């Protein structure tokens, strides 16, 4: 229980100044990642950011070697981040070049850049291990992130950079929205598509390098993808989707860092990713519009309506009903008595169903009602589509027909 109270303290920012700054930094990072990731997801370039994040590693190694060669400490976070940004940028340009200039697809370009840059980075890490005589430079922590030994200055830097990136996402939301949905229209409106795409991936790059220390380069892509995919379930509007994605990312970042500060054996990066996934799973199952349960309920409801409709028509024609589901929905709707005979309500509804069927038939024969009858899926109530006078007119024709026959 000690861990739990520590976690509550961390959540309420009372677990010490350092832990609070780390949690806020991770939260702002998640905020920025969620927002930037939303556009990348809409533009269907989610996995490009995986190449970008793996391509940071050689930059980290080279920056360390350069800083040591210049007589520095080599572990300055700002320097390492600068180096990682340069090599990630080169990786991004190369993915673009391979995709445009050769016959290889984007997936092959991503896989190639990702593995080759990462491999080269690992070679550099072993070089660093050898040259520093076995002394750990601690660069391995960039693979999976580590908030445990984070310095106060580093945490502040991450928080500030995360906040700036979030603000940049907000500032660029209009051109990025246009390009994500309709590049041709965006170009016609004077938006430079290629430059906007580059800026969008530039934001992903920023998120990646800022997140190196917290989440690590292997998992940072999760913070770009998962909040965006989860947010997509809750809304059909871009503006709202960005806010929701930012919220999910920020919440996961903050809570994940707090959890990690309370429980020693829970690393921050993977915890943040798992929290993102928990929110994603919740969205997948329970979101009202596109969620799995909503779809299931909608399907059930539709099925019931079809069965009631068919059952009522059978009752009107006095045909026996055998289907179990039809019988049970009719009973539950109060159209049938437990012994299988129609109730008063049932007779009325059945008569109405037959009348409506006849009305639809007449309505369909009238050219001027094409638009209204086109909306009928066999279950639409005619009163919801046609006005009372139109129905009265149809009824008059029905009565005439009946009179003519008899």
């Amino acid at each position, binding site marked *: 229980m000690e861990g739990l109270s520590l976690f509550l303290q961390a959540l309420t920012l009372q677990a010490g100044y350092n832990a609070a700054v780390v949690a806020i930094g991770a939260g702002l990072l998640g905020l920025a990642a969620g927002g930037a990731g939303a556009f990348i997801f809409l533009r269907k370039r989610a996995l490009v950011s995986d190449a970008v994040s793996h391509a940071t590693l050689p930059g980290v190694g080279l920056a360390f070697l350069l800083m040591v060669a210049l007589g520095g400490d080599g572990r300055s976070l700002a320097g390492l981040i600068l180096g990682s940004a340069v090599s990630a940028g080169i990786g991004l340009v190369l993915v673009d070049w391979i995709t445009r200039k*050769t016959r290889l697809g984007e997936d092959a370009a991503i896989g190639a850049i990702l593995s080759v840059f990462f491999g*080269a*980075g*690992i070679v550099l890490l072993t070089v660093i291990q050898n040259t520093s005589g076995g002394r750990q430079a601690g660069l391995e922590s960039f693979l999976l992130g580590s908030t445990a030994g984070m310095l106060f200055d580093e945490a502040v830097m991450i928080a500030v950079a995360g906040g700036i990136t979030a603000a940049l996402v907000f500032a660029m939301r209009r051109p990025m929205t246009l390009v994500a949905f309709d590049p041709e229209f965006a170009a016609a409106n004077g938006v430079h598509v290629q430059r906007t795409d580059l800026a969008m991936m530039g934001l992903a790059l920023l998120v990646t390098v800022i997140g190196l220390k917290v989440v690590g380069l292997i998992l940072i892509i999760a913070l770009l993808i998962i909040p965006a*995919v989860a947010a*997509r379930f809750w809304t059909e509007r871009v503006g709202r989707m960005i806010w929701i994605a930012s919220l999910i990312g920020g919440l996961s970042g903050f809570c994940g860092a707090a959890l990690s500060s309370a429980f020693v054996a829970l690393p921050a990066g993977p915890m943040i990713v798992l929290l993102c996934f928990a929110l994603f799973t919740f969205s*997948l199952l329970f979101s009202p519009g596109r969620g799995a349960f909503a779809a299931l309920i909608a399907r059930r409801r539709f099925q019931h309506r079809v069965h009631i409709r068919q059952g009522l028509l059978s009752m009107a024609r006095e045909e026996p009903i055998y289907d179990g589901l039809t019988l049970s929905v009719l009973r539950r709707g109060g159209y049938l008595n437990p012994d299988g005979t129609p109730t008063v309500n049932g007779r009325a509804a059945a008569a109405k169903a037959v009348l409506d069927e006849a009305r639809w038939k007449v309505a369909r024969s009238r050219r001027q009602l094409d638009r209204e009858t086109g909306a009928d899926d066999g279950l639409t109530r005619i009163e919801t589509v046609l006005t009372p006078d139109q129905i009265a007119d149809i009824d008059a024709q029905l009565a005439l027909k009946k009179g003519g026959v008899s």
Partner: protein
Amino acid sequence: MSAEFVQLSLTPMIVGVLAAIACALPGNFLLLRRQALIGDAISHVVLPGIVVAFLVTGTVTAWPMMIGAGLAALVSVAMIEGIKRLGRIEPGAAMGVVFTTLFAAGVVLLEQSDTSGVHLDVEHALYGNLESLIWFDAEGWASLLDPVALAGLPPQILRLAVILVLTLALLGLFWKELAISTFDPGFAQAVGIPVRAIGFGLVMAAAIAAVASFDAVGSIIVIAMFVCPPAAARLMTNSLGHQIGWSVFFAASAAIVGYIAAGYGPIWLGGVHAVSAAGMIATVSGLILALCALFGPARNRLSAPSEGQ
């Protein structure tokens, strides 16, 4: 020198070559089907698989780990399919969600469990331990003919050789079906080829190759070999058969050149320690791809020689 070479370097090189070819073969078809990143996804989910296998059995022996990794690969394929269908999400994003989550779960599990007594960590899963596959019983080239010494070969060689032969056999058996369903799925369906089953079989073959390789060489080489040699080969030729030949040649060259560069390069340059062989092999495969992207005869759509010439 030569006895030392056989003892220390020959077996890692053979393992590297076998693993590289075993991954490059299915990689050719994944590349042509625009599924090149499946290898990336599979090699990430291997980690939770081996951690769970360790937690269940309490040891780090090969077979439970491989079964665990294989099961994890299956689980990830099922999760990707489920998320794609339930959420109507594009495949790339669904893949991103699944493999990052499973990898994160693997890391958390690993941190939670006590692995102090065994050699199991994230770095191992990433870089493998190619350099440690030493042939203790070898005394020179003559040991290759000595059954007693041969029995002491690292077990990874036999395992990878079996997987490679199996992959080759499957490739020969289903060559026509694979080729047709890769280039023209619609036509394949029309002539009665089970396109979905072939696709699933291909992913499974890739998963088996990845799982068998990661233990010896780590996931960096696995990802690199799934993509780089086939991609480089694709830039050399238009014929599927030639492409596969080139990819095998590139994969083997990358493994051999990379291993030598990692093991002896630093010493030739005046250093004392070798650098990561896995990382160097991946780097060399990238250099090969870069050369092909710059000079390959079929590097872009315009310069590709037309069929039948």
